[in-house]
């Protein structure tokens, strides 16, 4: 698995910031998944253009105090793919 792979959303899901939940959520037919803050920050950078490596770099820049995020991002990408939220293009 290369960090150059590019994640994109399964068209079934739509990510958005939900004020009433104070979090990012994934919306899908007749349901809503409330995301924890780190999952939300990662998915908010998934746009079908940026690679996993670029997303990690962007997060590292947004959260300069965090330790290396590469492992966390990779782990989450696997979860997100298993959940069918994202696909690798």
């Amino acid at each position, binding site marked *: 698995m290369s960090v150059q792979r590019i994640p994109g959303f399964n068209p*079934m899901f739509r990510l*958005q910031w939900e004020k*009433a939940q104070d979090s990012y959520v994934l919306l899908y*037919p*007749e349901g*809503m998944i409330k995301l924890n803050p780190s999952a939300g920050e990662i998915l908010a950078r998934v746009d079908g253009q940026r690679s996993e490596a670029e997303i990690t770099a962007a997060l590292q820049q947004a959260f300069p105090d965090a330790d290396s995020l590469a492992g966390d991002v990779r782990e989450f990408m696997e979860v997100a793919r298993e959940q069918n939220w994202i696909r690798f293009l």
Partner: protein
Amino acid sequence: MNRTGSVSSSLSPVSGCLPDVEPKPAGQPLWLLAELTYKCPLQCPYCSNPLDFSASGQELSTEQWVQVLRQAREMGAAQLGFSGGEPLTRPDLNELIQEARHLGYYSNLITSGLGLNERKLEQFRASGLDHIQVSFQASDAEVNNMLAGSAKAFEQKLKMAREVKANGYPMVLNFVTHRHNIDRIDRIIELCVELGADYVELATCQYYGWAFENREQLMPSRAQLERAERITNEYRARLEAAGNPIKLIFVTPDYYEERPKGCMNGWGQIFLTVTPDGTALPCHSARQLPVQFPNVKDRSLEDIWYRSFGFNKYRGDDWMKEPCRSCDEKGKDFGGCRCQAYMLTGDAANADPVCSKSAHHGKILQARSEAEVPTDTPMTFRNERNSRVFCRSD
């Protein structure tokens, strides 16, 4: 319609803040069902619309619907269903879809597919409609058309389901199952696979509205139901093994359960229906209850949701009677469905008779034994003419 009225709630801060009743703890109305119209080209005998729909008042205007969408979104609503009747009969549907996307809803068009065409599908897509749920009556034209009361319905539905997918929408296919089509569940599933559905709801009829009127002719026998569930499970395993992501959702009728469903996740907790004339309901069949429900023409949704009499009536559990009151499962099923309790026992505060602890559970057992014996009484189709009969008999 409502005693507090629009004047007091908008002009006088004092009376506007006075609740009808002591408000009870309530969640956010995450789910808004917008029943845009009762007009429909079909006549399904299990329609959940009220029997006396023909006596309903004037439909809300576009501007009034926009206000409803805005207010509900402000209160946390995220899922929006455009329903009816057939929502496609509203000429302002596209405008409402645009507004819904603009506000951030995840919107769903719940349709029979009649009145849909390629141009509209593309237009709705561009306006931000998120997904489409097409309802089918059966897997073949004959039964479908018999039940829908329309000869061309099935062909049009197939065509539109294919178009929905071609336009890149996630597609939910909804099959209402009953004793006349449940034995063909294998063909129903195969049709859904062929059409490329993402979700399939194999929903056994729930006996409300017109379906309650036709229950004897609709309710499957236990053997029919068990067979259908077994076949569905076999397909699930087979499709998963083949890597097909289609999701089959099998909904059993609660008449074959011993504990009631946790109806609507609790009264006035997450679900809000607004009917064509603006009546706000905690669920789409609540209109039949002898409870006065507020109207969006008279007061704000926020006031309705948190402070109206109707929305607080069965919130929490202090309205409960025995056996619910002392039951350790009341936090799970909330005593079941208020409408079912009312229809079958005459008192909406009773336990849902689906529960084996209910003194009225015999009504459910009786319906089950009736389902073992086929009946040839004709069904009552949902149309204006039949609806007017119900208006008169009320």
